[in-house]
């Protein structure tokens, strides 16, 4: 039965597709293969999510070597959801990619672009599905190395320095993570997350564990752009090709957030992390700082993609805020915001890419009068912006409400106040776009661009429709997030 092998196929199929695309040496064939692979991974993740909802955790032993000796792929309600988010975003990005990539990347390099996108997809899915700490590091580096090159393919020369900066910080983060894993391995003698969780109870000297946890927190914090470790993100998202910005914004930081949740709640357990150590308050203070500082920085940006990038740092703050509560409801809210914000930011970056195609860039001076020249894209962007603010009827509201409810349940009223006040900052940066698009004249003498081609508009509108649909009918995501939180907290403990 192939269905039995879905956990490993999710990582292997894109990994094998990458060299095939390089051999094919054709932009069109590369796109076709990548499209087929993205569709296959999305179908497999959806089937896995449906299966774990009914059957519970699936354990897959690579090469039939039983865990904890062999590498185990362990699928539960949490990582199946993350895998579905990643592969669905890849699938939505593929029809969009053909036109966008043709416009932004030279003909002779297009096949390499698709090969790298497949490597990145393989890495992200591998991180999500593996149950082995060292295997996670390898996939982290596969996805990161592919990401650095994808960012460097941007048209602006600043894409090169952005990619270099991300390479330095990303490698430092991954190395800090592997130092932390080394500490845990020395203390427990295992690399399997579930086995590690079981053995942590018997460890007498907890100093190496605390040090290991600190290293992992700092390392993964760098990868997920936890304020103030976010310095790499704004430039990377701004200067990367449009498809890459959309794909990474929806998936890369979200997968790292999942890793943090896995280590905190499944390996160490909520008690050890949040009761015995002061991680909760530290994480909460950093998250609130992200909400205010990054959102305020977003208001003053001169470029729409850069505004969205700073907004991402702020929105990640809501997710880490949910984690910092250390409770099942807080974790469920964080997981729901991972999905909802991933979809919202994916939609917004796809729309920004459509504008970049027609206007040659996303600086606010070019966007003036967009409500008249590209009415559909401008309106969809406003809908996505409402979700960033958290207006009722959009996906962003559902998860923010869950977060506020979780904070109230924990009696953390200052967090409730911070969430509400920071939403006002989101109003301000979304208003920047509204003001520019609807209350300014198009620049004199500029050609009237018209809407982007339908291959690009349709995926972006589909994502925007998902944002509204998940806002009006939020239960599927909230239920899936609650199950994910239960799986994260229950696994191995």
């Amino acid at each position, binding site marked *: 039965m192939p269905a039995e092998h879905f956990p490993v196929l999710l990582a292997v199929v894109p990994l094998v597709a990458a060299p095939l695309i390089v051999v094919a040496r054709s932009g069109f064939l590369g796109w076709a293969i990548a499209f087929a692979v993205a569709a296959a991974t999305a179908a497999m993740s959806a089937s896995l999510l449906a299966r774990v909802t009914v059957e519970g955790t699936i354990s897959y032993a690579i090469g039939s070597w039983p865990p904890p000796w062999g590498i185990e792929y362990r699928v539960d309600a949490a990582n199946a959801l993350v895998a579905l988010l990643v592969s669905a975003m890849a699938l939505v990005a593929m029809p969009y990619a053909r036109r966008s990539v043709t416009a932004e990347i030279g003909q002779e390099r297009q096949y390499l672009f698709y090969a790298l996108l497949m490597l990145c997809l393989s890495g992200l899915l591998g991180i999500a599905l593996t149950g082995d700490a060292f295997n996670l590091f390898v996939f982290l580096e596969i996805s990161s190395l592919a990401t650095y090159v994808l960012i460097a393919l941007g048209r602006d020369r600043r894409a090169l320095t952005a990619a270099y900066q991300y390479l330095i910080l990303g*490698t*430092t983060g991954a*190395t800090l993570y592997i130092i932390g894993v*080394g500490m845990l391995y020395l203390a427990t003698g295992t690399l399997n997350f579930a086995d590690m969780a079981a053995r942590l109870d018997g460890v007498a000297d907890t100093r190496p564990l605390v040090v290991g946890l600190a290293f992992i927190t700092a390392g993964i914090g760098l990868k997920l752009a936890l304020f103030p470790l976010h310095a790499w993100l704004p430039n990377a998202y701004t200067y990367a090709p449009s498809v890459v910005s959309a794909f990474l914004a929806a998936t890369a930081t979200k997968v790292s957030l999942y890793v943090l949740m896995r280590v905190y709640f499944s390996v160490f357990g909520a008690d050890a992390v949040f009761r015995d150590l002061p991680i909760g308050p530290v994480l909460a203070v950093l998250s609130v700082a992200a909400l205010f500082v990054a959102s305020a920085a977003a208001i003053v940006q001169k470029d729409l993609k850069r505004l969205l990038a700073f907004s991402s740092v702020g929105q990640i703050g809501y997710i880490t805020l949910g984690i910092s509560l250390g409770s099942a409801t807080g974790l469920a809210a964080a997981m729901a915001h991972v999905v909802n914000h991933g979809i919202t930011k994916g939609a917004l970056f796809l729309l920004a890419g459509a504008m970049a195609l027609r206007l040659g860039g996303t600086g606010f001076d070019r966007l003036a009068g967009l409500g008249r020249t590209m009415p559909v894209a401008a309106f969809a962007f406003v809908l996505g912006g409402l979700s960033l603010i958290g207006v009722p009827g959009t996906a962003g509201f559902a998860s923010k409400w869950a977060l506020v409810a979780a904070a109230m349940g924990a009696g953390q009223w200052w967090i409730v106040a911070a969430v509400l006040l920071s939403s006002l900052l989101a109003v301000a940066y979304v208003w920047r776009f509204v003001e520019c698009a609807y209350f300014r004249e198009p620049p004199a003498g500029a050609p009237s661009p018209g809407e982007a081609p339908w291959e690009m508009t349709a995926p972006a509108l589909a994502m925007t429709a998902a944002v509204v649909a998940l806002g009006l009918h939020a239960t599927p995501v909230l239920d899936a997030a609650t199950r994910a939180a239960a799986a994260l907290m229950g696994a191995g403990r």
Partner: protein
Amino acid sequence: MSFLGHFSYWATVFVMMTGLYIVISRGNLVKKLVGLGIFQTSVYLLYVAPGKLIGGTAAIVTPGITLYSNPLPHVLILTAIVVGVATLALGLALVVRIREAYGTVDEDELLAADAKDD
């Protein structure tokens, strides 16, 4: 345990901090990558040293031998070395491209050039 008993850890921490300091303090992009390489190398030491038991032998079951070294850290580090080589190669390739686009590999001059673009 004395200072000498923890010698390998002291050496590891010294190499680790040297590498990280170079990454932070140097403005030359190539030197930063050298620092990053040293930083990663320290992790190889961190893993490999504890795997060796004094008097232990290779992990092949042999009659009459009871003390074996742990081979797993060495295997892991082989993978980490490959990752480190790939990272260094990609980093240097990016530096070549940056040199072509900007005509410099100095961080301050790059920032000045970017500020002029804005």
